[in-house]
């Protein structure tokens, strides 16, 4: 057993910390949060130069040959620095499914360009029912003249506003089992039948309503097999849940450090507030949440990385980490007091992301139900 990072991962972590601290100061984070685009092209290109976009792709697709665990290390740092932008969508929701289910041609077409930072992708999965179950996929793709025509509304599609391609998850066949009859299409986001509307959200993450109105797509754009898309989605959702946990443990770590530093400096009653037992115990609770979240995330990530059955560990991690991050940021706000309730301060950036992260890819209730099933209930 070795629950630490490898030497290469430690190097990646340090490099990412240094780079993001320098290149993505909180001033930029706030600007991007307020902008419609939500990312900086200049920063995006620099990240690509560092090899981050291709980190988990094999070398034959111009990738870095890294593992899912390496990606987790990087996402942890991105969460620490609350990096805005479509990295998560492009790599986790776009690149990984293509790598898993794509044809050789599709991989050659997309992966090297993603790695070079030339493409932004995302997955159009959830709909107004706002559920991650197979039965919630109702957007229809109907065969027409050898191609397919997609109709319907996708909702909460992160980064669709800047995406070049959407992995649209659509129903191609009505069957008794909702898990069959689902197909994934890689759709050019500039298709004239697609109408994308940016939603204003708590975390200022760029979620969108995406309406497909007779969007015609060739059958070559199908990822994997017709009607057999759901296992790919499930795999993506498990990886995305753990990847989101990785971001959240970084954010929670940063929140803890900010709050502890403040508790050491802020003087009231002629002494640092960190000398008061109430504040000390808040901090003790925060670090337990941060550390607890870290190792169950690592465990789930390791199982995914090894190709072991990870459903239970993934659900355990997502059920816990989302709640833990929220608890940590609430205590962080409590320690910062009034100053934390200002837009100028950084604390709210983490709090907002904790809320969004806890919801993404299924909230705690959703994942506890998966755990219950895995327990044989």
């Amino acid at each position, binding site marked *: *057993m*070795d629950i630490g990072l490898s030497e290469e991962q430690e190097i990646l972590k340090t490099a990412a910390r240094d780079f993001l601290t320098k290149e993505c100061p909180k001033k930029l984070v706030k600007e991007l949060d307020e902008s419609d685009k939500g990312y900086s092209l200049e920063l995006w290109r620099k990240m690509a130069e560092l090899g981050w976009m291709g980190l988990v792709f094999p070398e034959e697709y111009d990738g870095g040959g890294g593992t899912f665990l390496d990606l987790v290390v990087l996402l942890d740092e991105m969460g620490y620095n609350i990096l805005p932008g479509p990295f998560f969508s492009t790599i986790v929701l776009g690149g990984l499914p293509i790598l898993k289910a794509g044809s050789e041609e599709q991989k050659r077409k997309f992966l090297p360009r993603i790695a070079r930072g030339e493409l932004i992708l995302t997955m159009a999965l959830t709909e107004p029912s706002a559920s991650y179950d197979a039965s919630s996929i109702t957007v229809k793709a109907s065969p027409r003249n050898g191609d397919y025509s997609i109709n319907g509304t996708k909702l909460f599609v992160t980064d669709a506003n800047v995406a070049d391609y959407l992995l649209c998850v659509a129903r191609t066949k009505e069957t008794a089992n909702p898990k069959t009859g689902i197909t994934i299409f890689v759709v050019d986001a500039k298709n004239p039948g697609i109408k994308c509307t940016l939603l204003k959200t708590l975390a200022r993450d760029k979620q969108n309503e995406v309406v497909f109105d007779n969007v015609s797509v060739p059958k070559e754009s199908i990822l994997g097999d017709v009607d057999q898309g759901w296992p790919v989605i499930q795999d993506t959702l498990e990886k995305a849940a753990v990847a989101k946990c990785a971001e959240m443990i970084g954010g929670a770590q940063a929140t803890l450090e900010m709050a502890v530093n403040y508790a050491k400096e802020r003087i009231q009653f002629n002494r640092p507030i960190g000398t008061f037992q109430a504040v000390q115990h808040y901090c*003790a609770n925060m670090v*337990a949440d941060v550390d607890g979240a870290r190792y169950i995330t690592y465990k789930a990530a390791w199982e995914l990385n090894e190709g072991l059955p990870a459903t239970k560990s993934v659900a355990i991690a997502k059920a816990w980490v989302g709640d833990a991050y929220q608890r940590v940021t609430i205590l962080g706000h409590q320690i910062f007091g009034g100053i934390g309730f200002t837009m100028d301060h950084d604390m709210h950036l983490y709090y907002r992301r904790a809320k969004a992260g806890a919801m993404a890819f299924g909230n705690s*209730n959703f994942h506890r139900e998966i755990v219950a099933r895995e327990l044989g209930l």
Partner: protein
Amino acid sequence: MDFSFTEEEEAFRKEVHDWIKKETPQRWFELDPLFWEETDESWAISREFQQKLGRKGWLAPAYPKQYGGSDMSHMKRLILAEELGYNKAPVGIEMEVAVNWVGPDLLLFGSEEQKQKYATGIAKGDLVICLGYSEPNAGSDLASLQTTAVQENDEFVINGNKIWTSYAHYADYCWLAARTDPNAPRKYDGISMFVVDMKTPGITIHPLINLMNRHSFNEVFFDNVRIPKENLVGKKNNGWYELMIALDSERSLIGTAATFQRLLEDLLEYAKERKCHKDPIIRQKLAEMAVEIEVSRMMCYRIAWMFSRDLHPSYESSMSMVFTSELLRRLADVGMDIAGPYGQLERDSKWAVLQGRIERLCLNCLSIGVGGGSNEIQRNIIAQRGLGLPRK
């Protein structure tokens, strides 16, 4: 990163598992005593079991072979602790106290003779040692202890009283903290550690009946108790330092998550029996327990892993203790949620379920989180030692 155990470790797990199954008498499971619920009969079973464990070198596996241990790796010790917990083996707080609190101090600071006699005695399961720390006015503020040990020629004369002394009525020796220099400028500086034979004249034991309606704690009175000066362990007036080292050495109860895992499995079975396992609220609660047990397990694993890398845990053990103790209370609550009114029945009732375990857990769970460093003290340690928050 690698969360797997080696083949050798897995084989060891099976060996331990099979051994515990073979060596634990059925009667133990009928008695099913939780912590602080021992009877003379259950105590006799656990003594015998621990002596067998001792003969395997598994009672104090971390100790060097020459003192009855087996120089066991940290990962194997984790596995051993997990299997003992998961299989409800006849081991209890008395083993934790002797093996993990007293023994390490003896090995670090004791003379060769003391190591041979007491540490080896602990490791072999031959000695029962009670902890003479707390006093009526020295609980969390342990350094305020008032029991005195005054040197007279070749003896120390001990006067004072200790409280919450678990199993003093069964103990061969007391591991005693006493004040040897009442005039030391700091209260921490005048304390020394002793091994005291419980048969020495002048010692009287008053039972305290705990919430489980059992006799496990005592008040112990020392009235001019004369012990040979050779029973001083370590340096005179250096006791506080020695005691703190021991508290640091391992107070994580690294097998606890496995104990909880078994408890959860019992609750899952019972929920199915009672046909409430389709209730969405019960499902959520049981799942949450599974989640928290996994968090607790990872905390335990981290500690074992840190030891295995010679990274010395400091606040990590406190964190694990706080988390697990509070988790046990939540587990007791979930048990009660599943069992409903049946959960409140004492074990002797013909209507009792799970041997009345839920009712007993609801009481028992109040003790951990209080004894052995309250959760408030543990959180202070996490904040001050772990996060560097200032004391004043």
